[in-house]
């Protein structure tokens, strides 16, 4: 069966982009603010500049790293069940990441999310059939910043079962964030065998790695925790103006991450990811809903696939400030392109305002967009359609096919039926049901889901250990309480 697909790059162009990126890594190199990593790479033949931080790769080094990258990996939920398969053209959606704000449905105002908001979002993600994993989508503002990364992972693992796309804000936080995962999995060996999280690790454009993010890459690799590289070249600002030029830079930055990870631990699982963007010189913003941003995402995904590495992108999100038409069309357009491109981990649902504002109502709308795009990429295939004559004889005889065997067998498989968030009633029925706007229907669905939530089936001992670890981490930071619990 034909898998519907979109492509932006010819293989010749991919080769050329890869060649240019490798040239940059060999001639200009990257800056890595992490002496340990610099010396590790230097031991393996990389050339360190006079500043002790700029490091030029050799062609062999890049080739060797690329050879050891696994072509796929899986994520498992807190119960140990397979939840996500990062392979081939599989498409998995995960909410956008690390918003500073949450949109209040009633007032249309943004505010800093609290623990309660974060838990609500976990409870809804848990019930979204088309969203494969959780992400640490917001930063709870009611805990100090130094624990906000581990605290949100703690809340996600405590209230949800889906695997978590996350990241550490400091080098030290990795320890507790790994321990939280061990609490769920039981042992290092089990965690390596059944990954529970993906850590986002971002190089700094142009061509730099901070001490924290590069160390996170190494720490994850050593524990076989999957990493997604999130290079963020900005066309015309921190990258060439052209999409091709931006792709060259994205490729160079991502390849440098692959080298760091694979020399730390050959075979460590990674996603060829990113969050590049067009740069809007009129507003000094980085539009995630710009068509050029989406094109760059799909194109670097093709480069990742060419290298036989699973992929990720921040796509299918919007820059709108409210759940309006712009929010819908930018999200749907991005999600459609991403699905057609076969991006394996699509980070986007729920996100507004340049990925800085999360909306629960948008999350339930986006779940429908994800459902529709997933239906789309299943394509068109005959299902007991041939010979066709009997179906038409039946139609002419019975005057309709609403209850024919063929209809009943394939109705739900062939057609995706969205929830009531999507309006498909005729006008009269729509009016009879309250003439609700999209926002109102989405809010109603949010309330329904929050009521329908049942506590996760994660082992109670694991939950207790999670809480004990989190309390210990908070005490280590001299905190006297966590939201809702005295220490």
């Amino acid at each position, binding site marked *: 069966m034909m898998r519907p697909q979109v492509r932006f790059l010819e293989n010749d162009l991919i080769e050329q982009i890869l060649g240019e990126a490798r040239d940059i890594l060999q001639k200009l190199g990257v800056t890595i603010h992490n002496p340990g990593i610099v010396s590790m790479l230097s031991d393996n033949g990389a050339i360190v500049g006079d500043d002790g931080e700029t490091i030029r790769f050799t062609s062999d080094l890049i080739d060797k790293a690329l050879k050891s990258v696994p072509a796929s990996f899986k994520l498992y939920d807190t119960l140990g069940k397979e939840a996500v398969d990062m392979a081939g053209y599989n498409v998995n959606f995960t909410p956008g990441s690390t918003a500073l704000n949450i949109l209040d449905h009633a007032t249309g105002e943004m505010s800093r999310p609290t623990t309660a908001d974060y838990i609500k979002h976990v409870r809804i993600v848990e019930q979204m059939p088309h969203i494969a994993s959780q992400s640490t989508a917001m930063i709870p503002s009611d805990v100090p910043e130094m624990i906000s990364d581990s605290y949100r992972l703690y809340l996600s693992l405590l209230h949800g079962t889906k695997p978590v796309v996350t990241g550490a804000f400091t080098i030290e936080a990795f320890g507790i964030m790994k321990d939280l995962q061990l609490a769920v999995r039981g042992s290092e060996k089990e965690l390596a065998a059944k990954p529970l999280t993906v850590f986002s690790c971002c190089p700094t454009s142009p061509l730099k790695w901070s001490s924290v993010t590069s160390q996170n890459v190494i720490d994850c690799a050593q524990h076989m925790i999957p990493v997604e590289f999130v290079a963020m070249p900005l066309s015309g600002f921190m990258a060439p103006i052209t999409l091709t030029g931006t792709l060259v830079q994205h490729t160079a930055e991502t390849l440098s991450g692959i080298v760091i990870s694979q020399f730390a631990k050959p075979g460590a699982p990674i996603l060829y990811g990113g969050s590049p963007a067009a740069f809007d010189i009129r507003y000094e913003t980085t539009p995630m809903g710009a068509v050029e941003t989406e094109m760059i995402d799909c194109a670097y995904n093709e480069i990742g696939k060419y290298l036989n590495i699973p992929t990720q992108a921040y796509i299918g999100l919007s820059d709108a400030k409210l759940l309006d038409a712009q929010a819908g069309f930018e999200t749907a357009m991005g999600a459609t392109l991403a699905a057609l491109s076969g991006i394996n981990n699509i980070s986007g649902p729920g996100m507004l305002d340049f990925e800085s504002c999360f909306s629960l109502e948008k999350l339930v709308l986006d779940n429908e967009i994800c459902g529709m795009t997933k239906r789309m990429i299943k394509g068109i295939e005959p299902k007991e359609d041939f010979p066709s004559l009997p179906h038409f004889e039946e139609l002419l005889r019975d*005057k*309709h096919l*609403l*209850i024919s065997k063929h*209809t*009943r067998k394939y*109705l739900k498989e062939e057609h995706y*039926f969205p929830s*009531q968030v999507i309006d498909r009633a*005729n*006008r*009269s*029925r729509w009016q*009879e049901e309250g003439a609700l706007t999209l926002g109102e229907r989405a809010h109603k669905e949010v309330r329904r889901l929050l009521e329908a939530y049942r506590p996760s089936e994660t082992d109670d001992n694991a939950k207790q250990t999670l809480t004990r670890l989190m309390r210990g981490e908070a005490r280590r930071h001299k905190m006297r309480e966590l939201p809702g619990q005295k220490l």
Partner: protein
Amino acid sequence: MDLLKQISESLQQGDDEKTAKFTGRAIDEKIPTQQILDDGLIAGMTVVGNKFKAHDIFLPDVLMAARAMYAGMDLLKPLMIKENIPIRGKVVIGTVQGDLHDIGKNLVGIMLKGAGFEVIDLGNDVSPAKFVDTAVAENANVIGLSALLTTTMPIMQQVVDLVKQRGLADNISVVIGGAPVTEQYARDIGASAYSFDGINAIDCVDKLITGA
């Protein structure tokens, strides 16, 4: 399980064979015909209608239930005639003159029949006189008009007017529907009611007949 409940549940599952089987058994056990109808078949269909309105089930599920309803009704009807039990109501339906579109009308027919109404379907391209003559001859309570074309909508007005001219308005209600038809249009032409889809037609016709 209670036999009437079994009728209701097999109808809800769209199982015509079981619905007929349990209805037959209820007749054998001398459960009053009216009770089999109300607490078995119609009770089941009411649940189905409500589930459909709540988006819990889809149209094919409703039609399967309607088919099961027919299976039960086929057994009950001879008894209802013998015992002089009034049917839920009689409806003459059709697509108006000049219009050959009958998908929506057919759906309304299936739904009404499934809900226990007797339905006389005149097909499409039906003249105003034929609607009214048939309604009179059959002693029907309701005439249901369907149109898809804006150009044939005025025929609806003619049917309404004809019912009034012949002094039948107290006994025969006219309900209209179809894609271009609106509640406002029904008011404008003096029709008794407007129905926006097949399921809605059940409530609509029921209200007209019971006067609720």
